[in-house]
Each structure stands twice: as C-alpha cells, then as structure tokens.
C-alpha cells in the first residue's frame, strides 16, 4: 500500500490567495493541480511537500481562447478540454495529435496543461509540443507577471524556471499564417508515456521553409528542442530529402538513455524517424492552405 507522508492542505480561492498561501507556507509548499503526477510521486515518497495548495477551484485559470493572433491556454485547462477545443486543433493540429495519445480518457479529465509542463518529466509530451510551437509561458509572482519562452522554461529533469512562490498561469502561442504542425509518438501500449516522440511546426514562404520548430521528448534532447535540425532547415526547400537529413541531425544531437521503455539506440532511431514523419505531416497540413486548395482526406 502506497501512502503519502503527512502533509498540510489548503484550498486557494483565487490566484492572489494561492500566491499568498505559497509565500506563507515556505519553499516546501507545492501547487496541487490535477495531482496526477504529484500524488503518485508523493505515494512513492519521491515528493514530500509540507503543504499542498489546491488550485482546482480556480476557474480563472481554466480557460482556452483565441484572441486576435494568439492562442491562450489557462494553466488549469485539462487535457480533455484542450482535446475538445476545435479552434486550438484547427490552428495547431499538433495539440490534438498529442492530446489523443497522452494517458487515457479518465486521466485526461484530471491532468492539467500547467501541471504537465511544471512537472517537466523528461518524457512529457506537451513539453516537446510547446517547445516546437515556440510558446510563451506566463508566470505570476507576488510582484506581478513575467513571461518566459517555452525553450527557456525547462532547466533540467523535473525542473523549470518556476521558482518557489510562483505560479504558471497560462501558455500563449502566436498564430501565424502559412503553417502546419504534427506530433508523432511511439509508445509501448495505449495510454503510455512515449518511448520517443517528435513534434514539428513548419511555416513556408512558397516552397522555402521560413520558420520551423522541432520538439523532441524522451530522447534526451536539450530543452526538448532539436535546435541543430531547425537551423539546418531554415531557408531550405521543404523536400523529403531535407526532412530526412533534419531527422538525422536531430538524432545525432540527442542523448537518449536505455531504460525499461527501450534501448538508447532504438530511441535515437525514433528521434530521426519521428522527426522526419512529423515534418512530412506538418508540410501536408500547411500545403493545402498555401495553395488555397482542398485538403485531402486523412490530412487531418
């Protein structure tokens, strides 16, 4: 039987209240969102916070909206809420690709976007997704807000720039025309964490890649990003050959480790192959809009 250690518990009534509770409870206090990472860690005694500050009642953090040229996702949005949001999936199919294969439908009703990102598990799917999308994280602290690029958010395994006393409140993604995106994951079974996964976002100017973001997870990519592969693609034509090369470059620059999910060499292979597949699918999704043509069935 797994039992968490003793802990104090507070329910926050507002973001200000949560910040206040964090300040009063000291560095060993933790925000409790869906609890689907934190509670298992507490049961295994891998986490032993002194105080939990439950933010599940904060509807002000559970929002999802497209405002002007930006998608804004509140930190308390559940995986299921993001998966159900048609607008988010239309602008960024990568979000729905990923959410369809994160955990299972019951877990997706509880796990939150903010919790996933703050957990910063080296195999977290959304870390790669928001790195690929070059999202911006909005962090509240007692004196105001600060914003941090997703690529600077993760400082190591299970570590982010969110300091004690701070709360991640939302994630913003800029909407730019002429783009496509995709997420490709290989897991051992339905609902499992990835053995390896890659997300790609692509923006085109004619046939030339004007911008790209490639996120990798579970394969030991620094900051969940394939920076060298992105660098290679920028300004080059969106061809199968260049996508293949980008995959190789991504694989050469990651540091996978062997574990119960698979050997390092297999993960390196996945980094290459899944990067190429994600780029290919992102191009297919960008292309019809670029040409003003019809989407083909299955382009999704």
């Amino acid at each position, binding site marked *: 039987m797994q039992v968490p250690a003793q802990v104090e518990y507070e329910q926050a009534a507002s973001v200000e209240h949560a910040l206040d509770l964090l300040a009063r409870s000291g560095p060993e206090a933790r925000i409790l969102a869906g609890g689907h990472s934190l*509670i298992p860690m507490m049961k295994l005694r891998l986490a032993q916070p002194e105080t939990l500050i*439950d933010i599940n009642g904060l509807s002000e953090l559970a929002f999802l909206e497209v405002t002007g040229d930006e998608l804004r996702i509140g930190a308390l949005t559940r995986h299921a809420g993001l998966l159900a949001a048609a607008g988010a999936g239309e602008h960024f199919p990568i979000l729905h690709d990923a959410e369809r294969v994160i955990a299972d439908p*019951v877990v997706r009703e509880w796990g939150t976007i903010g919790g996933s990102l703050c957990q910063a598990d080296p195999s977290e799917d959304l870390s790669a997704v928001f790195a690929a999308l070059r999202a911006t994280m909005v962090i509240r602290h007692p004196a105001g807000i600060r914003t941090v690029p997703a690529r600077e958010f993760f400082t190591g395994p299970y570590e982010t720039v969110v300091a004690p006393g701070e709360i991640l409140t939302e994630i913003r993604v800029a909407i730019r025309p002429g783009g496509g995106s995709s997420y490709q994951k290989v897991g051992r079974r339905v609902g499992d964490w990835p053995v390896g996964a890659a997300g790609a976002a692509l923006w085109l100017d004619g046939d030339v890649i004007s911008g790209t973001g490639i996120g990798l997870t579970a394969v030991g990519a620094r900051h969940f990003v394939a920076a060298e592969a992105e660098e290679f693609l920028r300004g080059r034509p969106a061809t199968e050959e260049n996508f293949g090369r980008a995959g190789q470059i991504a694989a050469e620059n990651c540091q996978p480790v062997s574990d119960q999910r698979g050997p390092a060499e297999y993960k390196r292979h996945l980094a290459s192959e899944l990067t190429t597949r994600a780029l290919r699918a992102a191009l297919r999704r960008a292309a019809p809009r670029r040409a003003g043509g019809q989407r083909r069935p299955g382009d999704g």
Partner: protein
Amino acid sequence: MRQITVTVNGEAHAREVEPRLLLIHFLRDELGLTGSHWGCDTSNCGACVVWLDEVPVKSCTVLAVMADGHRVRTVEGLAVGGRLDPVQVGFSECHGLQCGFCTPGMMMTARWLLDRSPDPSPAEIREALSGQVCRCTGYENIVRSVRWAAEHGAGGHEPGEHSGAATGSVPA
C-alpha cells in the same frame, strides 16, 4: 486533521480526515463503500474509478480532501430508485465480468461515456475504457455489455437524477 463534507451517492458525509488520505480509502474504509476496488494503486488499472462531480477519476490518485464540498458517485449509486442502471443489466446479460474485480470501474466509465455519447461504436467504447484493465474477459464481452446498455434505454436515465441532486444537499 481536516473536516470535510462529501456527498456520496446523494448522501452528505462529514468526517475528520488526514489530508494525505486517498479518496479510495475514504470511500472503502471510512464509509464502508467497498464496491470501488483498489487494485494497482498506481493510476493504471482503473478498478478504483468513481465520479467526482460529473467526471470519472481514478480514486487512488485523488485525495479525499479534494472532494470536500463535492459530489462523488460510486458503483453503489449506479442503480437509481432500486432500478438497476442499463449498464449493470448489460454486464449481467452479456457476461461482461468473470472475477468482477474491474467491473465497478468499468461500469462507472461506461455510464459516463453513455451520458455523453448514447450510441457509441465499439471503437469508441474501447477508447473510453482504454485506461482500465481486465485480466479475465478479454474485453469482448465488456464492449458487448456497454453496447447492450446503449441499445436498451441508456437514455432513460435523466441527467442529474443521481447523487446530490436528489437531496440537493451540497453544491458542486
């Protein structure tokens, strides 16, 4: 210790609990509602699924204090007014269980699915139950059982007919 009030299957229960107490143990040990099973303890098997408000949750992965002021529905609250839920009848008719260990969780998630999607395809049923494990049936009869419920008046169950709504005790 913390004072909490949880409305379980329409009845309000006030208890003093440790914040670290998991909801599954609150239900089984504090309230004696042993219908919800406690299996893997790692949020993987789904034997412990109950509803917290309108949403299924693996109750080994939430704290009882998180349910304070909320409604919980367990397998004991599936039958309404002495009438078995069509999901329960379906599992009986279609031999949807063998040892029965996974069954309460399967039925709670199935009920949730049918409330949102009254005529689900077998693929939809498999997807909805994909976070739950059955070591006996091979799943075929579970899928048939849920289809049976869909075909036999799954819609006859009024939303809000269950749990707190009947007594109106504690707001969500």
